[in-house]
């Protein structure tokens, strides 16, 4: 396998999407770094950014420019040596600008699938709809004479299904980035018995160059990440519903969101994370997982209802959070959606009351931000959960249930053979979801 040759003409399908644009960015930078090697001077590297939305493709250049600048600023020392023979490039600013140009030059946007017909490698990052994925792959296969490889970013559809349905003959694997791809370290790698070995070798090298951590997942719908996340959401909804004897729907959503963030020392509460990913995306993932895993419970009436009401979350083009089950001002949660009223209820109206019902945080509590970077975090967390274990408040009880359930989900992923190792589950949650601790832990044993 020739790593460089495979990267000379690449396509990203769904390039203007949240995941696609991140994959495009990282791949463009990697390709530009190859292009800038003196021995590749005469070669022509091309990265096709294909998406259905012309408007989104236009916005893509702005995104790339900003992001490549950030990357260039961090490696300007290296870039100075890359451009050492160009006498016109003297200052850091000039070198950074040139690098941005050199990366952007590689990217060609298009709304037409035909642009993928010359590519040797295709990243698929379209919506979670297996029929559409199969259709596009088939169309490319029928017209592309370069023996193309497919790296799909699907977070739920089994790879062997795509392989069989699109008749790819093992030239496909799952290469699942986490959101946002430029930041999260994790890539879930999913191969099938049929996957060509060359693809696997390439995937490892490519991940290494991008400084990503690979966690292998077995080829079961949802894989490790969504295998945990979707069930974690469903538990959150169930927990909220169980609270509705003592409080309203919006209060319960607020309470569980607070428990799953502050009490559990996570970067976001479960409902904020659901909004971040998008309620439509969550719904699609559950649609994929439910029949394939034969688990009727992998569906949520609430999520379906909110989608019907066009309450979907996701992000605006500037990266800011759109309102979903929660609404936001400057990134902070300010209100909860009430599907009965079809309107948002301000949390200020009930926050004090619900906070009081939950009870105060343990005295040893530290916010996620300070725990995540703490080298001695195990000790901090052990002490914290020990204190929480002995507390009789509603907040502590909900936390214990949530943490225990999260662990059970992790153990189920192992017993269901989604992964062979408990460690893999923990690594996925630590590096793909930025959790401060893995779900399979012993904080509540003894």
């Amino acid at each position, binding site marked *: 396998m020739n790593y460089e040759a495979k990267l000379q003409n690449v396509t990203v399908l769904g390039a203007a999407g949240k995941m696609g644009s991140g994959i495009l960015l990282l791949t463009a930078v990697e390709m530009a770094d190859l292009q800038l090697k003196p021995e590749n001077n005469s070669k022509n590297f091309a990265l096709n950014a294909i998406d259905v939305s012309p408007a989104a493709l236009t916005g893509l250049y702005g995104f790339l420019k900003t992001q490549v600048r950030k990357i260039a*600023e961090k490696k*300007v*020392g290296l870039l*100075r040596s890359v451009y*050492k023979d160009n*006498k016109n490039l*003297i*200052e*850091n*600013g000039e070198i*950074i600008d040139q690098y941005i140009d050199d990366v952007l030059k590689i990217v060609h946007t298009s709304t037409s699938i035909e642009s993928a017909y010359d590519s040797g490698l295709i990243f698929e990052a379209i919506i979670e709809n297996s029929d559409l994925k199969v259709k596009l792959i088939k169309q490319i296969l029928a017209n592309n004479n370069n023996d193309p490889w497919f790296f799909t970013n699907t977070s739920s559809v089994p790879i062997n299904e795509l392989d069989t349905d699109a008749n790819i003959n093992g030239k496909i694997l799952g290469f699942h980035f986490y959101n946002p791809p430029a930041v999260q370290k994790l890539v879930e790698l999913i191969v099938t018995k049929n996957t060509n070995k060359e693809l696997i070798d390439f995937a490892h090298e490519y991940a290494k160059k991008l400084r990503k951590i690979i966690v292998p997942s077995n080829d079961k719908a949802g894989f490790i990440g969504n295998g945990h996340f979707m069930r974690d959401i469903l538990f959150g909804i169930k927990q909220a519903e169980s609270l509705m004897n003592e409080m309203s729907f919006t209060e319960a959503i607020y309470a569980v969101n607070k428990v799953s963030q502050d009490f559990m020392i996570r970067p976001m509460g479960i409902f904020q994370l659901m909004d971040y990913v998008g309620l439509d995306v969550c719904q699609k993932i559950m649609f994929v997982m439910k029949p394939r895993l034969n688990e009727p419970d992998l569906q949520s009436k609430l999520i379906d209802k909110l989608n019907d009401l066009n309450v979907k979350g996701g992000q605006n083009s500037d990266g800011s959070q759109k309102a979903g089950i929660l609404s936001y001002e400057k990134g902070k949660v300010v209100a909860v959606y009430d599907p009965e009223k079809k309107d948002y209820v301000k949390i200020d109206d009930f926050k004090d009351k619900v906070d009081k019902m939950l009870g105060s945080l343990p005295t040893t509590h530290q916010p996620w931000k300070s725990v995540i970077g703490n080298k001695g975090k195990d000790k901090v967390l052990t002490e914290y959960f020990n204190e929480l274990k002995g507390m009789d408040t509603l907040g502590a009880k909900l936390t214990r249930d949530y943490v225990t359930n999260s662990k059970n989900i992790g153990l189920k992923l192992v017993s269901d053979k989604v992964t062979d190792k408990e460690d893999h589950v923990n690594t996925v949650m630590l590096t793909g979801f930025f959790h401060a601790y893995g779900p399979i832990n012993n904080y509540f044993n003894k």
Partner: protein
Amino acid sequence: MKRKIYMTAGYNTISLGTGRKEFHPKKPRPGIEHYIKEAGQGTLKMINGAKNVDEGVVGNFIASRFVKQAHLGAFMPMIDDGLRYKPSLRVEGACASGGLSLISGIKSVLSESADVVLSLGVEVQNSVKAIYGADILAGAGWFQDRKDGHAYFFPGQFSNRAGAYYEKYGRDKARKAFAIWYKNAIENARLCPTAQEYDNKTVDLEKVGLTEPNPRSFTDHLNVFDCSKVSDGASAIAILSEEGLKKVGVPKSEAVEVVGFSLKVDNLTEQPEDSTKLSTAQLAAQEALKNAGITINDVATIEVHDCFTVAGILMVEALGLAKPGEGADFVIEGNTSRKGKFPMNTTGGLIGWGHPTGGTGVHQAVTIWEQLTGKAGEAQIEIPSDRPYGMTVNMGGDDKTIVAIIYKKTS
């Protein structure tokens, strides 16, 4: 000297940048005119207004690139209407621009063309990210050397000096001395409310100072704590003749006398002959002391140009306080701390107080004025009666422009 020269009415704005509570990289900040105005008005207030001022001078390195503003001399009348139509100019000598502002004022008074000069130094540098600021500051070196220089050009230059010093005199000793220098700087800054590191709460400063340099993220031989930070700020002081002092109504006891000075410049297009020495600084210091008719042992406190910790150590040697290679020991032994025999940079210096490049030379003079007149507040040190002198050494570029000044207590 032909006439007696005094300085009084020193004023510093805060040194704004990372570390200050007021600093938010993404929020709007005061512009350069704010700093000029605040510092200028601060001094004018202490000398009974602008009417007595004969001339103004602004030291500034490179506002034309940092904030796209040139013609700084013409900002003087903005400070006070009373300065309209009076002479005012801007002087530049890289990070010694503040020192040149002082020299310019001293010379005007000496030449009897002025009795009162308002000397100012200013720089606003947080307008660009550090990686682009490095391009701008590289202008203090020869532009033809830029292409082959480090991304962080000046840290690269002084990293080379540190590397040479390690090789010649031992790395462990040198790194320990750098760490102690850093510790002294921060501890002194904590005593000065305008200092950039005033709020620094680090417990083990020496340990932080000993952080191993990382060539991948910064330079080969220096870590980020070895470097002064990016700062916005201004300082101002009045330079006066004896008549001038009378005119503004400030008693002599509130002023310091300038008893010696030296300005030395070396060829910008040449690399230093010996990287372990600040030869120009040495010559300037010697000349200033000679002009004052004293030796370094008569000086109670010194403000040296520690843009990098290594520069601090080399300054100690250039001043003749230690033999080559023994500046590190001198610092380790505590001689330069506020409790040592030669307290240096008693409000933090460039590393602790901050380094708004064009302002630094004037800031040094303000600190010495404060110390010799008992106005240094919490940072006040004792000035022994048999050593009533203070000294400043301000450096532009890599030992290229040096301003050394000797100040004497008046009462």
